[in-house]
């Protein structure tokens, strides 16, 4: 066997993780992202000063042209907003729906957790203990080429709306560019749930008691002819009963394990799961 491509790589070379507590100004997040992503080969800059600083992060250049850009802008010292652009300058996060993310500066500040890799990242903040998750990236299409017929980029719709309402913090609301469309769109229905159907309460485990771990696959297109676009790098889907921050050790090949941490974004409305991103 071999490690699946979406989980392949070496820590601090292909992916990394950082937890930073006590953050009182979102410029710290911009600088942390700069450090984390630069270490993985991203091209990053942070310009300006708080509370109007801007971080620009461009994923590593590939010979197949796959690349995307994330611009994180300080709305204030406690609020960030994100704009993600694909390799054709298409807005993965349309202007009217650019996600925002908060921290709380009081009471010792907030923790931020950075789960980064060459193909995307999750950034989780924990203001007042309520996790807010933003993520974006390009999908792994293995065994097919990542750029054929084209690369599929994704971003979370939140955690917060463009009006700063904490209404888009679900694990099941991603923005993608549907096959056949020219505009990115958010959907609650574009992941492969693995479970039987909506409305059933699932325990993502076997009757024998084993926890089920599956890739986070994203699909889309016009039903019923939907297509599997690919899977999120260094990310898995776990049971909704897993606690925020819980660390899960997963065998990813014979004698090889990886550690994932459960993100705190809201569990799926219909399909009883949480997202877990790789730590080591």
């Amino acid at each position, binding site marked *: *066997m071999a490690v699946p491509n979406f989980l392949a790589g070496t820590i601090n070379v292909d992916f990394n993780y950082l937890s930073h507590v006590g953050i009182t100004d979102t410029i710290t997040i911009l600088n942390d992202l700069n450090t984390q992503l630069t270490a993985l080969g991203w091209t990053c800059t942070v310009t300006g000063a708080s509370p109007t600083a801007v971080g620009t992060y461009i994923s590593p250049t590939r010979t197949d042209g796959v690349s995307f850009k994330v611009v994180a802008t300080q709305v204030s010292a406690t609020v960030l907003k994100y704009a993600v652009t694909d390799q054709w300058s298409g807005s993965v996060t349309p202007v009217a729906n650019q996600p925002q993310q908060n921290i709380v500066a009081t009471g010792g500040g907030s923790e931020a957790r950075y789960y980064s890799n060459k193909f995307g990242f999750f950034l989780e903040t924990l203001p007042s203990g309520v996790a807010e998750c933003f993520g974006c990236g390009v999908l792994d*299409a293995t065994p*097919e080429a990542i750029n*054929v*017929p*084209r690369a*599929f980029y994704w971003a979370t719709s939140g955690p917060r709306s463009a009006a700063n309402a904490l209404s888009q913090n679900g694990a*099941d609301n991603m923005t993608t560019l549907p*096959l056949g469309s020219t505009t990115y769109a958010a959907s*609650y*229905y*574009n*992941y*492969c*749930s*693995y*479970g*039987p*159907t*909506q*409305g*059933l*309460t*699932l*325990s*993502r*485990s*076997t*009757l*024998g008691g*084993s926890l*089920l771990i599956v890739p986070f*696959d994203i*699909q*889309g*297109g*016009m*039903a*019923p*002819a*939907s*297509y*599997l*676009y690919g899977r999120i790098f260094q990310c898995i889907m776990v049971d909704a009963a897993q606690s925020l921050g819980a660390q899960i050790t997963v065998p990813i090949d014979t004698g090889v394990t990886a550690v994932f941490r459960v993100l705190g974004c809201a569990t799926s409305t*219909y*399909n009883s799961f949480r997202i877990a991103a790789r730590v080591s």
Partner: protein
Amino acid sequence: MSVPAFLSVTPYYQETVGVSDVSTIITNLGALLTSQSPAWTLLSGVYYSPADSGRQFNITMTRTNAYTMTILVCQGASQAVQLGPATLTCPNPWSGAVRLFCGQFYIHIDIDLGSTTPVYFCAGVLDLSPEAQNAHTHFLYANATAFAGSSSNADISNVYMFDNATATYARRRSGWQSYQGSGQGFTTPNGARIYRPSELWCIPTGGGSAYYLAGRQYNCLMVPSTMLSQGDEITVPVDVGVTGVFKACGGPVPYAYISRLLAMRKS
């Protein structure tokens, strides 16, 4: 790598064309079951599957008339625990191709009626791998065009299993869709078909209302209905340098947007 356990069972297959009486199905399936290895046992009109780690089931096939038959599925070595009687009703009169797929752990009857909605039946015990095959007792399933006393059957997802301790007809096959009304990614944007195991979920005994993964059907795959039709034959790599041949099976009209069929292994 190695061949997955649910594809490691020897498949037996027979196709008969021009069938016009269900008695042919009963006769041919009975002969196929009792001649395979390990062989099923026929006792007083009941066919018993070979026992394995406590997993065993039996079926009783009854001809009602030339176009109707019923199949009673029971768990274990006796007929005490009944999962449900399936009813297979063909047009009157009818003539079609009957494809029988079976093995130590399963039976699948696929009736190809041409332009008419196909009729099918399947039942078996699930592969519990990688857990021990005796890890739990919710291993029996049955799925058919119709079951006596049940009207919610026009959906390939609906399968009879024991939920808690009660035989229940429910939408329990892994769908891979995100939402009941959404499509499913059974093809890639490049046009490659995606084959997935057919996995079934149920409520464990004393388990409340949550569904757990019970196991996967032997020699059975889910395949894209947008690219395959009943009777289509596909060759699927099941290990490095190893392939299996499967035939797409018909069934009730799938629930809207559920873009999949079952395919059973032929060889």
